[in-house]
């Protein structure tokens, strides 16, 4: 099903596959504001794709289009080689696209483990009546889901806070729990909106390592947003640069770094 126009091999020897998602001429307006202006780009299987740009450039809007939270006025989203009809966010999630939010959207009243378990909801098949009357099957499924959730928790090194209510966690750990919940869905594509925003240096390094590990270990395709150029350059395979809703650059970190439009855009704004 995937567009097999051949992939490429990264500098560190990872093999990147065909196009799994393609944005075609996306335009998104809020009243008079054009948040996204006719943008096209693709995401390939197994790659870490970054979207960068100054604040207000339209990065989050783009992620919201991909995850179904915003419906663009123009353009198409192609997924696995076919155009995707307009979808509700929960339908997108069920298609294997998991995400985190810039302003963290966790279930504050639940424990870390319960939060991660909600990530398994897309994978749970047994219906309500089956659960009531076919206890064995429901239990087997619950056990399997719990094991998967625990594996993700181990992977992201948050075992120590498994039972802690999320509301009590510091910001940096919340970001990590949100990543864990998204990962628990075993997504085809993982969308991360500023996963490192508001973190200290050490936390940023941890998060970078986790993102790389996830990609490496599970082969998960990752699209992530950053507004700080430095952080993503080491992390990503290819970068889309946005400014005022327009795409002003697209390529490898090196290509983007030497792109004059990108340099201008970044010199023209303060880095915060």
């Amino acid at each position: 099903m995937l567009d097999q126009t051949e992939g490429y091999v990264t500098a560190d020897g990872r093999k990147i596959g065909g196009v799994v998602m393609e944005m075609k001429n996306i335009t998104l307006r809020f009243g008079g504001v054009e948040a996204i202006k006719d943008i096209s780009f693709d995401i390939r299987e197994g790659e870490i794709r970054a979207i960068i740009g100054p604040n207000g450039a339209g990065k989050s809007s783009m992620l919201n289009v991909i995850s179904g939270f915003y419906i663009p006025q123009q353009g198409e989203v192609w997924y696995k080689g076919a155009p995707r009809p307009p979808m509700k966010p929960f339908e997108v999630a069920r298609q294997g696209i998991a995400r985190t939010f810039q302003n963290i959207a966790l279930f504050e009243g639940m424990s870390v483990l319960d939060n991660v378990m909600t990530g398994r909801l897309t994978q749970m098949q047994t219906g309500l009546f089956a659960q009531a009357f076919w206890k064995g099957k429901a239990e087997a499924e619950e056990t399997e889901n719990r094991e998967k959730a625990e594996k993700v928790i181990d992977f992201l090194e948050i075992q120590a806070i498994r039972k802690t209510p999320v509301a009590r966690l510091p910001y940096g750990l919340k970001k990590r729990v949100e990543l864990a919940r998204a990962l628990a869905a075993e997504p085809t594509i993982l969308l991360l909106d500023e996963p490192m925003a508001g973190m200290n240096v050490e936390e940023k390094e941890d998060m970078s390592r986790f993102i790389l590990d996830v990609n490496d270990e599970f082969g998960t395709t990752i699209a992530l947003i950053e507004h700080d150029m430095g952080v993503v350059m080491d992390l990503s395979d290819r970068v889309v640069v946005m400014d005022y809703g327009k795409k002003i650059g697209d390529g490898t970190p090196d290509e983007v770094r030497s792109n004059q439009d990108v340099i201008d855009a970044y010199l023209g704004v303060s880095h915060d």
Partner: protein
Amino acid sequence: MPEQLVFAMEVFLNGLMAGVMYALVALGFVLIFKASGIFNFAQGVMALFAAMTFVGIQNGQVPFAHLINAIFGTKIHYFGWEVYSVFAILLTVGVMILLAWMVQRFVFRHLVGQEPIILFMATIGLAYFLEGVADLMWGSEIKRLDVCLTDNTCLPQGINLAIDEFTFEIFGYGFFIDNLDITATIIAILLVTLLVVFSQYTKQGRAMRAVADDHQAALSVGVSLNAIWILVWSVAGFVALVAGIMWGAKSGVQFSLSLIALKALPVLMLGGFTSIPGAIIGGLIIGVGEKLFEFAIGPMIGGATENWFAYVLALLFLVFRPQGLFGEKIIERV
């Protein structure tokens, strides 16, 4: 004065059981409010509607008989059969699920993202509409409600639910407790247990808790808000049915039944609008409180304190602890 003490204890127990009833109604409120932010003014009418539907089905009444007769000039009122309670309950549950679907499909689906006050107004409209439908469907006369607590005539052969009169002795004084109250309490406990198991251990329960906690996050893990809202209204409808049957068995099914919703308000102020344990404990406190107050203080100030005690207590809470007993203090667990 052990006599007084024993009597006080009886009052206490009776209060506890009235409290169970308040708690049930409050529970319906909390479920919907947590999941959708809608303060469902129609919860009491839902209890009435459920109880009337139950009795109507049980007696083999023809729904909308008056309407049909008026239009076609017929004179039908009853099908001429009687339905066992168990089946009548199952059928009524079906009706309540259908109602939940219709409420979501025709009302709240079109009001997503509206101000809470608008949603509240919609539920007021719903309350009057539902009251009208109940009237039209089953007629407005007071009905007796039997759920075979004392005899087995309305159950299939071989099932025995009969409970004998219940008295016991303490300090040589006889206690008398209405066996209906006992049954009501047991059913309420079972119901709450069922709800807890459902919300903690099923996929739908987990999704329901997710929606109650954060809509955006719930969407991102693949939960359909619409489906969950239908589910929540169905569960609230089921809770309303249980409350309606119990209340109806006590004092007959009549339109004043919908007024128990007003007693649920102070319960919610005590327990907090989003806390299920709060609804239960708040209900018990008000039930016991108003009975004990009437018993101890009532005679001194002319009685009839049950009419206002709950509201005054709620008012005190609003002044001194506006978040309710459990607001913010405990971690929410549906």
